């Protein structure tokens, strides 16, 4: 019986198997190599994981926007990365005076809430405009138009903001409290990293509650599953979609502020690559799946952070950090090829008639 099965194996299968084997082998060989080289101390490994979680948390927050919009419209919101930029960039003009006047150091929480609110509002508004212009007109027509339209919106946003706020890099203010190094279990971390991870987790938990425990959230899931039936139940589909975009915009806004406080600078092109990475994270976790986006974000962050040191360095590849994007994209492609439903995938395997 096995023999008969073997007869059906094609060169495609062989290639795919070889690919998979090659990636796994490289990962294993690289890991062994790194372990043998023993270049890094435990503390360094731990801090790399922590960096990964920090950036991963931000990826996750952006990824939520992609995932929710995809879930409800079955469309990739290509402009989402730039929406993320708009909030962080605009919030700079609140953060800078706040910091300068000493308000931010004095009343950190109030200040942060204020800054986040500005970012969330701006992101939500821009998200709504994008929805209105690029998605609503094409909502029920299956075509590539919204994709192109969103790409157009992405260009437009970038360069409109460049024209508006200038092409220079704006530096986010330093906040004393964030930069304090704390020691946990003998490992040292700057406080901001915890703040980001906790804030990301908290936002995501809040989002989880909204999606799963509120009526609007349930309606969101209902619309994402069957828009027509939802409309027949008296659910205002437009409102639900707007709600989704606002939610996605808000999380992107929070992500933007956190990003800005971690990396301390914003500029008009900053949204593009985090956008692509976050999208990869969303796919990784299983697009359309809220906890998946979370998981995918953290996973991507950690792998990106550890990858060059763990896999590539061990293989003796020169300048491995230049290839960080390679790891992210390889992971994306491998997931799409071998597990298109993502890490979490569809919870309910159901055949649709």
């Amino acid at each position, binding site marked *: 019986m096995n023999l008969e099965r073997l007869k059906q194996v094609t060169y495609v299968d062989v290639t795919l198997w070889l690919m998979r084997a090659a990636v796994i082998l490289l990962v294993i060989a690289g890991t062994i190599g790194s372990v043998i080289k023993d270049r890094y101390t435990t503390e360094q490994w731990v801090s790399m994981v922590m960096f990964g979680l920090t950036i991963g948390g931000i990826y996750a927050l952006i990824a939520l926007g992609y995932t929710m919009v995809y879930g409800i419209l079955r469309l990739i919101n290509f402009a989402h990365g730039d929406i993320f930029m708009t909030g962080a960039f605009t919030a700079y003009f609140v953060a800078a005076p706040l910091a300068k006047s000493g308000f931010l150091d004095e009343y950190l929480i109030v200040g942060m809430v204020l800054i986040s609110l500005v970012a969330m509002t701006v992101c939500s508004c821009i998200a709504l405009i994008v929805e209105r212009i690029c998605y609503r007109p094409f909502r029920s027509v299956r075509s590539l138009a919204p994709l192109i339209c969103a790409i157009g919106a992405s260009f437009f946003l970038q360069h409109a903001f460049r024209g508006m706020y200038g092409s220079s890099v704006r530096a986010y203010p330093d906040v004393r409290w964030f930069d304090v190094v704390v020691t946990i279990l003998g490992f040292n971390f700057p406080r901001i990293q915890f703040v980001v991870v906790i804030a990301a987790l908290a936002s995501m938990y809040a989002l989880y509650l909204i999606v799963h425990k509120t009526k609007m959230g349930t309606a969101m899931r*209902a619309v994402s*599953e*069957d828009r027509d039936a939802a*409309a*027949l139940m008296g659910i205002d589909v437009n409102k639900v979609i707007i709600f989704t975009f606002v939610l996605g915009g808000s999380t992107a806004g929070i992500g933007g502020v956190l990003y800005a406080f971690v990396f301390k600078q914003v500029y008009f092109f900053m949204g593009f690559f985090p956008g692509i990475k976050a999208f990869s994270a969303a796919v990784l976790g299983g697009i359309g799946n809220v906890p998946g986006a979370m998981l995918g974000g953290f996973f991507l962050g950690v792998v990106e952070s550890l990858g060059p040191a763990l896999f590539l360095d061990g293989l003796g590849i020169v300048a491995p950090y230049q290839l960080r994007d390679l790891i992210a994209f390889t992971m994306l492609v491998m997931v799409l090829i071998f597990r298109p439903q993502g890490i979490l995938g569809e919870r*309910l395997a159901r055949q649709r008639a």
Partner: protein
Amino acid sequence: MAILEVDNINVYYGNIRALHGITFNVEEGKIITLIGANGAGKTTTLNSISGILAPRQGTVKVFGQDVRQIMPHLLVPKGVIQVPEGRRIFSRLTVDENMAMGAFTQLDKATNAKNRDRVLQMFPRLRERLNQIAGTLSGGEQQMLAIGRALMSNPKILLLDEPSMGLAPILVDQVFESIQDINKAGVTILLVEQNAYVALQIAHYGYVLESGQIVLEGDAKTLITNEDIRKAYLG
């Protein structure tokens, strides 16, 4: 009293005419059925009533008000709800959440609780499965959920689209019994069915649709004995 008046509606899909001047009334408290083969225009008629399709000509009035002036999702709080063809339950939501979606426009908590009890009483099977993911229900249970979900909106008129579709005959009987019960509780029902035999058995009055036109109407009792119908639809 006619609480639903459909007056000479014409519906087009692009340039293709789907309905040719359909006119009928639905009396309060009755079960009215539209029967006809696939593609005869039954679902189109139903969609025009629930407002998700707009007729090019003609009017649909619910409680005397023109449907075209009401956004479709605002029709539900007015007491008109449609159970779509093929059940269309939200299969990834739990049974309870599905029912909550039916009550989406129903803001009053007390009414909600009452409706929920009523539905669960009518379909005790659903009570056992409240927290189950709806996609894992059997076909019959799904149909019950679809009807139960619609009832959560406290409707005055229930538009049922092919409730027998895809159900084993043995389940069809059960579902139709429930429909009769709902009607007895005071809900007007407009039933669209391909399975003319079962539909006419519970209906008060029936219309026969063919290629977008009403070709025959009459008391259900008379229709069921009509020779043409017997030959055409009952085999």
